[in-house]
């Protein structure tokens, strides 16, 4: 039996343990984000900076202007294609991992995540080396006689999608793998016992029951892609303008911080809406399984 004084002491220590870390996140993440939210409602000052005179919705109106709305839609479609391709590659790969002996599964998952822990710029640069006019891929294609001229496969949206898929496919593998792990194998067995072939079992049983993993992976890839600025910049060669680049420009070249802040808030709103939908879908799926 612990005395209440001892328990209070423990409660106090626990709070003291958590305070510095949470405080750090509050000061260097929550407060800055709130400041950006506020700045989004003001206009830029004459010499850059912020004019704190009167609040305005002008920045958001400007973000809805077709000129900028197009960039949002373009980013969403590049991110959408990247997400789709990442799922098509990542899902079967995750499925194949679950067919391996357990010890090997851990090793394969680790290998799938390992590239994530190296420098993002270098992983992206590797594709510049491969895709440029004199790069390995063009040399191979010309050598095989498939094309006479080098193909323009770098500095366009193809290269951007490829770069995004390359960097984010590990997340899909991880998310789908953990969903497949949670799947009760008796469902698939029952389906087979009832005479369903492997394809039918996959489409009717396995895939529907792993949608939570698919959704989690998809949200991750989409969110990281739509806000990306390094990949469009390096692999798009300035020709592929995405929301990330637009925000970058407002802060480092146009020096219109309030407009950049408004664009960031729109991006955050899109992201939170997706996370919310994902959470709702996951809760529903859980409810269905328990029903």
């Amino acid at each position, binding site marked *: 039996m612990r005395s209440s004084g001892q328990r209070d002491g423990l*409660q106090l220590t*626990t709070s003291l*343990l*958590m305070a*510095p*870390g*949470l405080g*750090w*996140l509050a000061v*260097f*993440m929550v*407060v*800055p*984000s709130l*400041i*950006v939210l506020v700045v989004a409602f003001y206009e830029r000052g004459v010499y850059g900076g912020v004019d704190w005179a009167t609040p305005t919705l002008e920045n958001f109106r400007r973000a809805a202007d077709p000129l900028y709305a197009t960039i949002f839609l373009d980013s969403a479609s590049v991110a959408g294609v990247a997400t789709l391709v990442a799922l098509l590659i990542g899902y*079967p790969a995750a499925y*194949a*991992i679950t*067919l391996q002996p357990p010890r090997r599964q*851990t090793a*394969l998952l*680790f290998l*799938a995540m*390992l*590239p994530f*822990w*190296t*420098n*993002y*710029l*270098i992983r992206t*640069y*590797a*594709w510049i*080396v491969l895709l*440029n006019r*004199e*790069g*390995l891929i063009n040399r191979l294609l010309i050598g095989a006689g498939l094309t006479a001229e080098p193909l323009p496969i770098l500095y366009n949206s193809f290269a951007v999608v490829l770069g995004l898929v*390359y960097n984010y*496919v590990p*997340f899909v593998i991880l*998310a789908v793998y*953990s969903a497949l792990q949670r799947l009760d194998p008796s469902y698939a067995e029952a389906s087979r016992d009832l005479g369903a072939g*492997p394809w039918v079992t996959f489409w009717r049983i396995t895939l529907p029951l792993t949608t939570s993993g698919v959704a989690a992976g998809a949200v*991750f890839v989409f*969110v990281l892609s*739509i*806000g*990306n600025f*390094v990949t469009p910049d*390096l692999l798009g060669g300035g020709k592929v303008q995405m929301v990330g680049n637009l*925000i970058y420009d407002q*802060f480092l070249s146009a020096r219109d911080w309030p407009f950049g*802040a408004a664009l*960031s808030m729109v*991006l*955050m709103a899109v*992201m939170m809406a997706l996370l919310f939908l994902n959470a709702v879908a996951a809760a529903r799926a859980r409810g269905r399984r328990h029903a």
Partner: protein
Amino acid sequence: MRRLLTLQLGLTFAFLYLPIAILIVLSFNRAGMPTAWTGFSVDWYGKLLASPKIIAATRNSLIVAASSTAIATVLGTMLAIGIERRRSSPSVDALLFAPMIIPDIVLAIALLTFFTLIGATLGLYSIALSHVVFNIAFVTAVVRARLKSFDWSLEEASRDLGAGPWTTFRAITLPLILPSIVAAALLAFTLSFDEFIIAYFTAGAGQGSTTLPMQIYAMIRFGVTPEINAMATIIILVSFVLVLSAQRLNRGRLPGP
């Protein structure tokens, strides 16, 4: 079917590792990029080590990574113990998930605005303070995963035998969770050392606070050069070694971002 899936898995791993492997091979090519193989050479590594810019940028990155890792490891471990001792709340979980999912560019401009408004002079220290944000989240995740299987009755026993909270921590808790703390620190160091976007925005205008990723970015925008391949090879191998040691220490577990 099974064969087809295994083949697909093989192709996926080829897709993930071939670009890196080609980069490493080309870094030893005598004539450099991107033409045919002209013989083995380590000249590009020599050029790299002779560049004062690269040496200065590496030094800066080491300072930023070491200091942000030190702060984040202490705060993140404390936070993890606090959360696991009590029941975690959804708001704390959300706060810890946020740095992993907020687009880097948004966190970067938020921190730039914040530092500018409070009138801070930007430099290496503002990069380090900013890197602590995502590093706390990663350290907490790794240490929490270890604490899930921690037997809290050991702490209770220690207290019942009259040990104070600090003695209990030093003699019981710390030795048991130390491998995961070291693993977390190694991962945090890798993340901070490689981080580009937040560093780019919070470094300020001075040339003195250019980190290695910022230097690499400038070089890549300039074009494909053999020096970048050499540097890429060093960075890839160092990251792999750090992450592999973290994985060994942490008994095969790594957190998903």
